Structure formats: C-alpha cells, structure tokens
C-alpha cells in the first residue's frame, strides 16, 4: 500500500492514459459531428458591404451558412465584458460574428457547417465578402496619438486610464520624493507581444437531444462557460452541462469565455439537431484567439547613495488589441506586481490602455507580471550601474525584511483587495540564488555576462473554489472540483491531498475536474490558483467527511469519536488498531437502506442495525451517505516569490545569444508534489526564454500579422533551452490551511528581466526592449 502522500514526488495519475494515446482532447470527441469553419476578416479594419454566400452552396456536404443577420438577438449582441472595472470607461467587446465593421485580421464574419472540415473550408473559400477597407490603427503609439479610431465611439482609442499612488511613509508623493532624491534616472522600456500558444488550439463540440445541451470545450473554466451558454441560448441552467476534456495546454488564453465559437457551435447544434464541432486550427489560433505582453513603460526613479528607491513613477501604455473581453487585468497586474520584493519609498503608477486593430489582448501566463518585473529589475540594474554597485547589493538594500510580514504595499490588487504580502523570506532567497549561480565567483569576460531577476507573485486569487468528496461503499474515494486542468497534474496533486487528509491509500482516490455534471460551482484555472483554491477546498471537504466517518464509526465501535483516527482506510481507536472498521463499511452504515443489494449493504437495512427505534434513521442535520463538500474563499491572495539568475554568452561577430546556465530559487509555500512544481517551473522558464529571445507577434502597418505560423513565430525547441537548476524555499502561507501558494506562472515571470540583465552585463549596452534577437543586438552594438 502506498504511503506517497502530500509532499511526495508521486508519479502522475494522468500519465498512463496520455502516454498510450488514450487521452481525450476536444477533437478526439464526436467522430460523427458536423464540422464548423469560419470565414475570417483578411483586413485589420474594414466595413462589410456585402456577403455573398452563393458560391458555397455548390459544395457537396455543406449543411449551413450563418452570418450575423442569421443570429437571434441574444447571440448576435456583443459578447460579455467579463471583468468590468470603473477605470475601464470605454470597454468594447466583439460580436460572435461581425455585424458591420471588422476590427482585426481574423475576426469571424461567416460560420460554415459541413459534413467535415475539408468541405467546410472549401465552402469558406467560396464565400465572397465585399469590404470597404478602412485605415487601421496598427501600432501602440499610433493608437495613443488617436488620429484614427478603432471604435468610432472611443475617443483617442483610450479604453481605460488608471492612476494609483502610494505616498512615502513621510507622506511625500512620488514626484516630490524623486525630485528630492540624491540621484534620479528616467528611461523607457518596451516589451513586445507574444501569446500563450498552447499546442492544442481552442475547440468546442456540442450535442443537443431536444431537452439537454452538452458542450465540451477546451477551456480553463467549464462552469462559467456553462452559465454564459445558458444565458445566451436562454436555456435553464440544469439543462446545460459543460465539460472540459483533456486540454492540451492553456496558459491563459483559454480562460477567456464565452468565445464566439462557444456560443455559435451549441446554437448551431440546437438549430440543426446534429452534433457540431469546431477545432481551431493553428492559423486561426494566431489571428482569432488572444495575445499579450505588448506594453511601453516610462520610468522615473529617485534613489539614495545606497541604491534605496525613494520614489518611483511608472507610466504604462498598454495595447489592448481590438477588444477588452477580459477587462484591464493585465495592466492592473503590471502596475501592482511591479513592486516585487521591494519596499519602495513613494510610488505612482499610471496606465493608459488603448485599442489597436489587432487581436485582442487577454492574460498569458504571468499576466502583466513579466512586464512589471522587467521594469523593476531593469530599474535596479540601472541604479547599480549608476552607483557603481553590485546589482545584488542594490536589491538587498531594497528588500522587504522577513519581520515586516504581513507587508502592505498600499495598492489595490487585481482582485480589488489590498495588496498585502502574507509571508516570505527575500534576503534568504537572494542568498540562495547567488550561491546557486555562483554570483560572487562569476568570471566576467567579454561576451559573457550574468544576470538576476526577482519577483513576487500574487497567487490563489478568489473568489472561491469548492470540492466534493464522496466515499462509496466499495471504499473508493471520489473527489471532484469545478476548476479545470490543462496539464498541471491536478488528478495527482488533489488525490495526494485527499489521501493525506482522509488517511486512505492514494490508489483508492480518484479526481474529476472541470465537469459541471460533477461540480457546478467554480471560478476557473488561472492566476496560479488551482492548488491553493481547490486544494484547500478539497482538504476542507475531506475534513467534513472524516468527521462524519468518525461519528458513524464511533457508534458502530461504541467508542468516542475523539479517540478514533483513520489509517490506510481503516477507522480505528488510536493506539488500538484491532478495534477497527473499514471506511467502506462506514460508508454502508452512513446510508440507512430499505433494500440490500449485496451482503455488505444488508448490514445497513432497517432490520439489521441496532439503531434506536426512538430516533429517525437519518438524524436531523445529517445526510445519508459519506460525503462532504467544502469551499475555500480567501480574504486575499497569497504571495509566492522567486529569484532567477542566468549566465549568457554573446557571439562577438554574429550577435547570437546563448543562455548557458539558468538557475531558479522559488518559494510557493508548502509543496504538494515537488516533481510537479519543478515541472511547472521548467515550463515557465522555457516560455520565458521564448519571450526573451524568440517570440513576438510581428504586425505590419496594415495590421497584418506577418508571422502567423510556427515557421515564423519562434517557440523554442529543446535545442534552445538550457539545463535549469532549481532550489526551493518554503515559507508556508498563513492564509490557508495547507500553507500553499501558487506555482503555475512563476517560471515565466522574471525571465526577460534576467536575460536582459545578463546580456547587458556581457555587452555593456543598455537592454531596454525585449525580445532581443541577434539582429537587434547587432543594431544596439552599432548604435553604442
């Protein structure tokens, strides 16, 4: 019997099926379903004059063609703005199919349903849309000038504007603190667009039986997709179920919902009375999903001779793309998480979010933090350079000290709650990363540099998650939670939690996620929140089940529940394992029966037990069965942290940049499964290296995405990723019972800052814009 529980690097439950081709991803379902495809705008900005679908009607196997005019009002209206915010004064969302104006290349205009995807694409190719091409707003700064508008009713293209200001302890404003500081610097920092780019695109598959709608979606939130579909299709919620099957990666893009296709596919399935499926192809994913990261930052900083920051003023220009379905989460996160592990004298941050005629911008792993960390860490390096100090010394001078927790940064975080760090030990972390990379003994040489980057990440944001735990009369434990999985190993980690909390062998625990038939209340998987939120909810549900099991067992064993415990699935008297009863039997006894269906259940019928004839078989306040439900709703986020360092080599002639060492020290509180946490870090670092050196979305002045393929959008292969050395620090979170913090996004957050720091060290040239290609470095050298 296994004792591998909480904290053990237990092999994953998911793996056997995924290794044998038995995983079930969206496009593996519904073999007989009709296929949907979309005619999408080839223009960044255009007015639709006419749509002629007649050419498509000749295609054998065509089933239906829909334009905006065919949609009922509740489907055809603009999609929901998921996260409203008072500062988002001009929020705009797309309609599922464009009505009159298209605002980015890839915007859906016509939906085609056919017998298979080949035929659907044939039909799409034969549909003619007559466009009046309008001048596009392509660049961030062009958008800010406001000469041309993406939305005619959004003046200056400004969707949102927000200022947050925290005075110094002495009440000084950032402007005054900077003005009075012994040293000041100001500079501009740019980050270009990238994208989540999971290897499985989005996808939706719907079936309607005349009364009930079942929808499968490759989503990060099945519960919310369900509510959105029920509302749009005007179906009673109990008649809609949404299931996230195996999902081939999300990284943020699949939290957005409802996508146009998530409404149109179920709607078409109901209308046609046939199963309909849409599996996004790669080209669609580039132009019709979402991007992130594109921001310009103007920084002013004032500091003293030790490098302590006395005042910091950051002004951010955020590119929202054409629409704002996910609100302004990204620039809010940049604004707040920019501060990292530091205590800053006075801080002022302002962002302006502008529309451009490009794909909409929504969170991608890290969600604004990579940009904020890039600002803060570049600032630290510049201060060090200005003062001629070691870069780690300047950081040390600014770190929040362990005795200062909880530490209130004085800002409002993305969940609308105060930005208060719960726990951490940043000086120790700095010591660890310096030791791991060998900072003090690093031998600097031309073309060889070392860099560092530090971050703090708010994880486990609310509002809540829930868990349900049921022990059945075969002794098996069934755990379900509403949030979804995209490769994080939830089936394993949550089983480890349940097994530990219940005292059962982990082999008897099974976990279901993202299936609204099993659990209807959930928020979703994003913001490094699944382990914190559902992990704790499941632990709370387990506690409830365990308490009930002890009550039932106590009656059967004629013992005091307080004297009982559970080990390996047996309830027994502490210190007297012979007086025991299996949880399977407890489950039987917990459900008083009239009908026995086997020998075991015969023990629970009305004539079997010693139940008192004066009491109801199910006591008031009790429920039959051995199950429990728990919800975890934190007052605020818990803050994980990390510090990364890298050694890079740059070629003096070709300007190629090679990362030769990469080291990570990471603190996500208590580890449920260190193997999984390490895997999350590795993956994040690789995405970070992609963002630092390879990946960008290259739009031209016409708003055409020039590199919409894996040939030209350069995600790293194995050949581009160096070995990754890791060290763990554990400062448990005081906010939740398990003491855990999130780990999902951590790896990606500081990488651009770290690589910039190292290249700057190697080259002696300011690195203020990422990603950095050999061509970029060549031009920086030329200009130096």
């Amino acid at each position, binding site marked *: 019997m296994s004792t591998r529980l909480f904290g053990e690097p237990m*092999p*994953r439950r*998911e*793996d*056997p099926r*995924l*290794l*044998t*081709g*038995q*995983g*079930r*991803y969206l*496009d*593996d379902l519904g*073999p007989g379903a009709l296929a949907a495809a979309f005619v999408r705008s080839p223009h960044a900005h255009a007015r639709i004059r006419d749509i002629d679908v007649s050419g498509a009607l000749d295609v054998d196997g065509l089933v239906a063609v829909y334009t905006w005019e065919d949609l009922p009002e509740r489907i055809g209206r603009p999609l929901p703005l998921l996260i409203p915010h008072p500062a988002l004064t001009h929020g705009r969302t797309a309609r599922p199919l464009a009505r009159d104006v298209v605002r980015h290349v890839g915007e859906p205009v016509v939906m085609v349903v056919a017998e*298979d995807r*080949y035929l659907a694409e044939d039909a799409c190719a034969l549909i003619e849309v007559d466009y009046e091409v309008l001048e596009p707003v392509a660049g961030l700064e062009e958008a800010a000038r406001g000469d041309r508008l993406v939305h005619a009713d959004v003046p200056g293209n400004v969707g949102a504007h927000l200022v947050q200001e925290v005075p110094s302890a002495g009440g000084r404003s950032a402007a005054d603190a900077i003005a009075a500081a012994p040293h000041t610097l100001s500079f501009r920092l740019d980050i270009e667009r990238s994208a989540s*780019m*999971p*290897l*499985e695109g989005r996808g939706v598959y719907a079936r309607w039986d005349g009364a009930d709608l079942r929808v499968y979606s490759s989503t990060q939130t099945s519960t919310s997709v369900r509510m959105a579909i029920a509302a749009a299709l005007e179906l009673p919620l109990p008649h809609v179920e949404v299931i996230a099957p*195996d*999902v*081939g*990666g999300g*990284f943020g893009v699949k939290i957005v919902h409802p996508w146009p296709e998530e409404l149109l596919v179920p709607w078409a399935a109901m209308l046609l009375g046939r199963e309909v499926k849409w599996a996004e*192809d*790669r080209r669609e994913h580039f132009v019709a999903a979402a991007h992130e990261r594109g921001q310009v930052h103007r920084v002013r900083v004032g500091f003293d001779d030790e490098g302590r920051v006395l005042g910091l003023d950051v002004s951010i220009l955020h590119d929202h793309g054409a629409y704002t379905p996910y609100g302004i989460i990204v620039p809010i996160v940049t604004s707040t998480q920019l501060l990292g592990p530091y205590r800053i004298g006075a801080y002022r941050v302002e962002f302006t979010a502008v529309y451009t005629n490009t794909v909409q911008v929504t969170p991608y792993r890290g969600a604004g933090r990579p940009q904020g960390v890039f600002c803060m860490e570049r600032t630290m390096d510049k201060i060090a350079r200005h003062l001629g100090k070691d870069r780690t010394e300047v950081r040390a001078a600014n770190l929040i000290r362990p005795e200062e927790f909880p530490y209130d940064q004085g800002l409002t975080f993305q969940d609308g709650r105060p930005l208060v760090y719960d726990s951490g030990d940043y000086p120790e972390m700095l010591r660890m990363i310096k030791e791991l990379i060998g900072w003090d003994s690093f031998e600097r040489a031309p073309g060889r540099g070392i860099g560092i980057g530090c971050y703090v990440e708010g994880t486990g944001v609310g509002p809540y998650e829930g868990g349900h735990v049921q022990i059945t009369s075969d002794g098996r434990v069934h755990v379900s939670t509403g949030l979804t999985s*995209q*490769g*994080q*190993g939830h089936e394993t980690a949550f089983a480890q939690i349940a097994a530990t909390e219940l005292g059962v062998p982990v082999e008897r625990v099974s976990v279901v996620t993202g299936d609204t038939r099993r659990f209807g209340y959930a928020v979703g998987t994003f913001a490094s929140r699944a382990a914190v939120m559902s992990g704790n909810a499941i632990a709370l549900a387990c506690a409830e089940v365990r308490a009930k099991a002890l009550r039932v067992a106590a009656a059967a064993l004629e013992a005091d529940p307080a004297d009982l415990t559970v080990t390996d699935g047996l309830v027994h008297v502490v210190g007297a394992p012979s007086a025991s009863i299996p949880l399977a039997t407890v489950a039987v006894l917990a459900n008083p029966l009239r009908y026995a269906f086997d020998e075991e259940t015969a023990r629970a019928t009305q004539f079997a037990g010693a139940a008192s004839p004066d009491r109801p078989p199910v006591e008031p306040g009790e429920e039959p069965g051995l199950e429990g439900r728990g919800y975890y709703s934190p007052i605020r986020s818990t803050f994980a942290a990390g510090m990364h360092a890298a050694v890079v080599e740059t070629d003096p002639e070709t300007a190629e940049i090679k990362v030769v060492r990469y080291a990570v020290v990471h603190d996500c509180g208590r580890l449920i499964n260190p*193997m*999984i946490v*390490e*895997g*999350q*870090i*590795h*993956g*994040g*670092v*690789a*995405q970070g290296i992609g963002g630092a050196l390879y990946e960008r979305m290259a739009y031209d002045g016409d708003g055409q995405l020039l590199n919409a*393929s*894996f*040939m030209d959008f350069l*995600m790293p*292969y*194995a*050949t581009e*990723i160096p*070995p*990754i050395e890791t060290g763990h620090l554990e400062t448990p979170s005081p906010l939740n019972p398990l003491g855990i913090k999130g780990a999902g996004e951590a*790896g990606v957050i500081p990488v651009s800052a770290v690589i910039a720091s190292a290249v700057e060290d190697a080259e002696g040239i300011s690195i203020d814009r990422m990603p950095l290609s050999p061509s970029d470095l060549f031009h920086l050298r030329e200009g130096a």
Partner: protein
Amino acid sequence: MTDGRAASPHEITLVVNGVARRARVPGRRLLSDCLRHDLGLTGTHVGCEHGVCGCCTVLLDGEPVRSCLTLAVTVDGRDITTVEGLAGPGGLSPVQRAFAECHALQCGFCTPGFLCTVTALLREHPTPTDEQVTEGISGNLCRCTGYRNIVKAVHRAAELMAEES
C-alpha cells in the same frame, strides 16, 4: 482529365500497429486525419498542420514522419505505428515508462509525437549522447515541460532498454 472536385475516393489499406485497416479517402486526405477520423486512432495529435510542431509524428515503416505532411493515399500499403501501438503485451514501453518516471509530459498533447520520435531515435542510438538526444527531438515542440525532463526521459529509456535486453 477530371477536375479535383469530381475525383473519386481511393480505397487504401494501411497496416496500423500491425493490423491491416482499410479506408476510403479522397486524394487530399492527410494521414493524420485518416488515422484520427477514419480509423479512430485519436492518439496522434494535430498541433499545426504545417509540419513544425511534431505532435502528429508517427512511424512509417519504423521511421518517424509527420503525418500532417503525408497524404494517406501516398502510404497505401505501408506499415504505420502510432502511439497506440507503442506499448507491448507486457505493458508500457520503456520510453513510455521513462516519460512517466521523469515527468516528461504535462498536458500530454505533444507527447505522442515525442514518444514516436524517441522510440525511433533509441533504435538508431541505443546509448545516445546528450547531443544526439537534443538533435533527435529538435523537431518537436513542447509548450509545457521546458524539455529538460524529456531529455532526461530519453536517457532513462535508454537505461531501461539496456537493463531489459
């Protein structure tokens, strides 16, 4: 000559994982779609359909190829191994076991392509160097793992195969 839209389908036979399977496919049917949708072997995944990601890699007469860059009709009569055919009667193959042991997969979407590629790689280089491993898997994208555990798993699979042979 008839034009493309009037072309009649082709009857083909593929020997997939040792079993002769017949399918009726248009000339343009990609091998990836034929395996997935005509033969129901959905373990072979499609990530880009332009040959860059490697998710759709299968073994054609033992050699890894992109099934999204292969017409089904072109390989009529040939032997194909997909991820569903990698496990033996005794259970998971050494490569599959090593991937689990080394946590070389997360979402699992790219995994079938890696498994096929690595299976062939280890046949050619039973004790590969680090460089051979990296080169061998250099045409497969993974967005989750950061590759280091995949490299580790390839070496581990080589060890397992050596132990078991």
